[in-house]
């Protein structure tokens, strides 16, 4: 089933991510970016794609990436066929992640990390966004004294909810919400900025 996010106008109301995100949390079902991408037709003059991998605990790099994207719009000469900014279409593919901490620690001990893949598609001053995968990786303190993945096994958030005690899960859920909120707030600002540049 196709799950579509709201198509945003110039105001870039990206906080609408949150509702579908919460739905994803409890279904643990990987989503649907392919259908979103098909919205871009072959007639689009440019499809600019940027892939950015964000390290855990560093969601601010998403912001840096989007700022870099915006800077490209300021200098259309960097884009190969020099299309008009008004016709610009682009996709930012972002993989971001953040740690979940255990409450038992003196300061903080990493319980695991949540990763999500996010597509941000811009076309004619419209923004379409989607989260198409989200998963949890279990961490352990390794031989180097760092917290690192116990294995490459990816778990759904539903698995995490079942495996953790209620109070731990609630703490983790709040952490996920906070990180998403931080990310989306920054994206909202960046989308506004992109649209301001595009409108000039």
């Amino acid at each position, binding site marked *: 089933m196709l799950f579509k996010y709201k198509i945003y106008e110039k105001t870039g109301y990206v906080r609408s991510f949150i509702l579908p995100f919460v739905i994803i949390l409890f279904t643990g079902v990987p989503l649907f970016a392919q259908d979103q991408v098909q919205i871009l037709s072959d007639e689009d003059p440019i499809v600019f794609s940027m892939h950015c991998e964000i390290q855990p605990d560093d969601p601010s790099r998403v912001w840096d990436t989007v700022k870099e994207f915006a800077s490209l719009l300021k200098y259309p000469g960097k884009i190969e066929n020099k299309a008009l900014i008004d016709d610009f279409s682009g996709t930012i593919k972002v993989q971001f992640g953040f740690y979940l901490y255990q409450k038992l620690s003196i*300061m*903080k001990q990493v319980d695991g990390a949540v990763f999500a893949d996010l597509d941000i598609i811009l076309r004619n001053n419209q923004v379409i966004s989607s989260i198409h995968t989200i998963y949890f990786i279990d961490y*352990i*303190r390794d031989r180097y004294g760092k917290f690192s993945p116990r*294995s*490459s096994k*990816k778990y759904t958030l539903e698995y995490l909810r079942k495996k953790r005690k209620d109070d731990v899960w609630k703490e983790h859920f709040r952490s996920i919400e906070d990180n998403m909120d931080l990310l989306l707030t920054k994206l909202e600002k960046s989308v506004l900025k992109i649209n301001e540049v595009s409108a000039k």
Partner: protein
Amino acid sequence: MKLILTFIVLLLYASSLTVLAQDEDSPGLTISGSVDTYYKYDFSGQSQIGTSFAGAQNSIGIGMVDLAISQTWGKASFVGEIAFGPRADASAPGPVQNLYISYAFNNLISVTGGFMGTFIGYEVISPAANFNYSTSYLFSNGPFQNGGVKVDFTFSDRVGLMLGVFNNFDSYTNDDSGLDLGAQLYLMPVEGWDLYLNFVTSDDSGTEVDITTTYQAGDRLLIGLNAAKRTRGNLFVEDEGEGINFTGVAAYLNYSISDPVAIGLRYEYFHDDNGVILGTESESSNVNALTFSGNIHAGPITLIPEYRIDLASMDIFSTNSGAASSSASQIVIAAVYAF
């Protein structure tokens, strides 16, 4: 004692710095570690299985208190880990277990320099990261740490490569002129299956080739395998009959019965090429070791009851009456508190 007090003062100071630094959007420090204690009884009446740690017979023994601080700030990170106790004394030339700085130039390349837990093998020094409390022959006779500089290449989620130059094994300094060359190839053939191909060599330390792999088969079952071959180096060796030469394989099955309870089996075959490790006076010998362990989790505490039996090809053990024997068995009950 002075060293411990100094460390505690530094730790408190670091904690206060963390609070200040967090005000400036720093990521803060991560503090983690463990303490462990155990009771062991070898049925011969004396401790005789020659693997690392847990050597106290019929007494409440202590492992180590282990404290690690770490931070990742943008592209830079560091780890400082210090430990005290019999387990720490037997695993490092001093109290420092890890001390290194890393810098990630980008998503592909990162460089790390300092003193690091070895990349060789399946088991580790920290009891909090092992399923079994007693250790394998492969672990006990391989390197514990490598100090040096390494470059990690992360080609994708599924492929990584590490290349490095290191001091001699388990040393804060290089004891001679030659450096060790080390490499690790990481592969993830399928999700949940992690495969590490490890190699380290020098004229002085010798050469060890190691395969370490785990497969998470579903949510409850973890399958692990470690195989290694080590040949002697020149360091501290005066003739051909000396030095460590071994081949071995260890298999691990860990099964989670419920959230707080898991059971595990370790089987190991270990072949000592020249009798140096198993004490068979220049004759090659081998040992088959079976270890059954439980992990019972209660918050930060893991209780590890364990039974182990070692069966050797020669009479390298003794019975309760003092007669030579080819087998030894022991029980261990350990408690590990990890934070």
